């Protein structure tokens, strides 16, 4: 048995040693409650996102939290696979837009989306609009998250939204943009549905879309 609140708080406090020791002990004792432990870690990660939004945590904390989360998933994965607990809450295409090679923010968002139960199709960096549109069509995915750091990323995000329009798919997809140059005004220029500086907001928005809201 493990204490749900302790594990959740340890994740929220980025106490790597306690999180990993708790999970290893749980596995050594037969792995019962692995799904609950996973939930506790996910809840802890949500708290990390909240603390970031409140200005108590910074990007460095999100990177470290993502690291602890992937180490945790590695430990729990063998048991979770046996339990067949692989239910996904939705699918998302994630990409750094054309012309931009930065992927730190994108990778943080991927870690947090995956922890929240999304199946993320990560197309990488410098991704051309048509590749994103083709993937959405082929994989039948209607949530698109676009990332960028450079000011020129705004233009590429707009090109990507336009590519969905030109393919006659704009009404079928939800598009969120994120990264340093993004803002409310930028979102309007781009023609996206939502924008975020915070990965937690991205997760919440995608969850809402996946739930049909």
């Amino acid at each position: 048995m493990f204490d749900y609140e302790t594990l959740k708080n340890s994740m929220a406090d980025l106490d790597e040693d306690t999180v990993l020791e708790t999970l290893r002990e749980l596995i050594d004792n037969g792995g019962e409650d692995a799904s609950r432990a996973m939930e506790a870690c996910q809840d802890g990660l949500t708290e990390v996102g909240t603390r970031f939004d409140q200005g108590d945590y910074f990007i460095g904390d999100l990177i470290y939290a993502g690291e602890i989360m992937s180490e945790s998933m590695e430990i729990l994965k063998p048991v979770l696979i046996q339990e067949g607990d692989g239910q996904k809450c939705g699918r998302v295409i994630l990409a750094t837009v054309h012309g931009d090679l930065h992927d730190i923010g994108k990778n943080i968002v991927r870690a947090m989306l995956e922890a929240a139960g999304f199946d993320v199709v990560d197309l990488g960096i410098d991704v051309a609009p048509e590749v994103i549109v083709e993937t959405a069509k082929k994989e039948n995915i209607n949530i698109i998250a676009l990332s960028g750091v450079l000011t020129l990323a705004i233009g590429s995000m707009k090109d990507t939204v336009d590519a969905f329009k030109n393919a006659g798919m704009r009404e079928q997809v939800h598009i969120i943009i994120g990264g340093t140059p993004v803002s409310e005004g930028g979102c309007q220029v781009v023609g996206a549905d939502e924008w975020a500086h915070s990965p937690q907001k991205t997760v919440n928005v995608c969850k809402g879309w996946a739930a049909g809201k």
Partner: protein
Amino acid sequence: MDLVFSQLDIDMLAPVKARNPCTLEIIGSYTYAMGGNGFIQHPERSVMDVEDYDSFIANPHEYFIQNVLKKYCRKLGDDPWRNAMILAMGIKAESDYSASVGGAKFRASQKNEIYSVPFKHLAFAGAPCDFVADTLRGFTAFSKDVKRYPEKIKEASEAVLPMLIKQALPAEVADVGYTAMFTHMPAFMRTKEFEQLYFPTFSKLLHATAEKGQYFCVFLESDWTRYIDYLQELPQGTILRLEQGDLQQYKDRLGKKFILEGMYPLAYLKHATKEQAIDKAKEMLDIMAPGGNYIFGFDKGPIKPDDINFDNFQAVIRYVAENGKYDNAGERSMLEEPGKSIKKCADQIPPFQSRYYISHDEYLNSIDYPVPGMEEIIAGKLSQYEEWIFNSLTNLK
């Protein structure tokens, strides 16, 4: 260049240079890569494993030459002769490119009567912690090291100080010169981490360099409002280039000790109307100009022509040129004599030493000519080349 300068009512040119694809191709740059739209940028790279901190700390410059250079320059292989050729070609290409850009800028500034700081008074150096993050470990690995190995970051930052002080000193120190620095990691760290890991060596670098008469122009990436108390500790007269944050707080709490620059949102040049763009400039001048110590500037530099609407750009520059006038010209604008704010620390920092660097005195002691006075002349010249290769190699990426 000439066309653009001739249409702007500006007093001074900032040094600007895009990356040279030839240099990057010659060395097989690992650090810089061209995006699908042709813009060369710096994706995240990690070239030092966590196990190597101690080797780096033992001698940062030797570690850099022996281990980092070959990772940055992927064309360097097992053949030392070919390696020497690649490095020579890379440095020559970069030097030709700098001369070409510098020459064009010089001619355009002469023609349009715009001041430009002579190159010999300029230098570039990163903050010690940023060196560890950006040059060695990469953003992601560094962020994890902050949590797991803070002591290693501290030791590495202390160890690299002598090398960075050396980089921070230009060929010739003069009042008009400055050393440029682009900070990176503070925006992504907790305040406590900044205080313990970043600030001590950042501050030492600026003070030790100021002791030698050279001041920094520091670009403060993102919002530094939460770090204002720390900034107040820096040498008076340092130029602080602001990107985001509370303009009024910056002015009130830093404006008497430092020269403040920046923060005009570049997005206004692209997306706002001309009137909105001018109103924004007026709003900034109203806060920043009284009392002086202010240079109008943008939060970010435009990286390609269509990042801005040139009409807006021209209108904003004209407004600032016509209205940006000091009401206290000729009066003292700072709190005290610049030198008084310097916390002397240079003598506590070990001198720079590396098997790949020969000092002026070592040259002088190792050469012997039959003609009196010739040793001094030759040692001086050799020393210049030594400085040149030191700077060229530490900047070859």
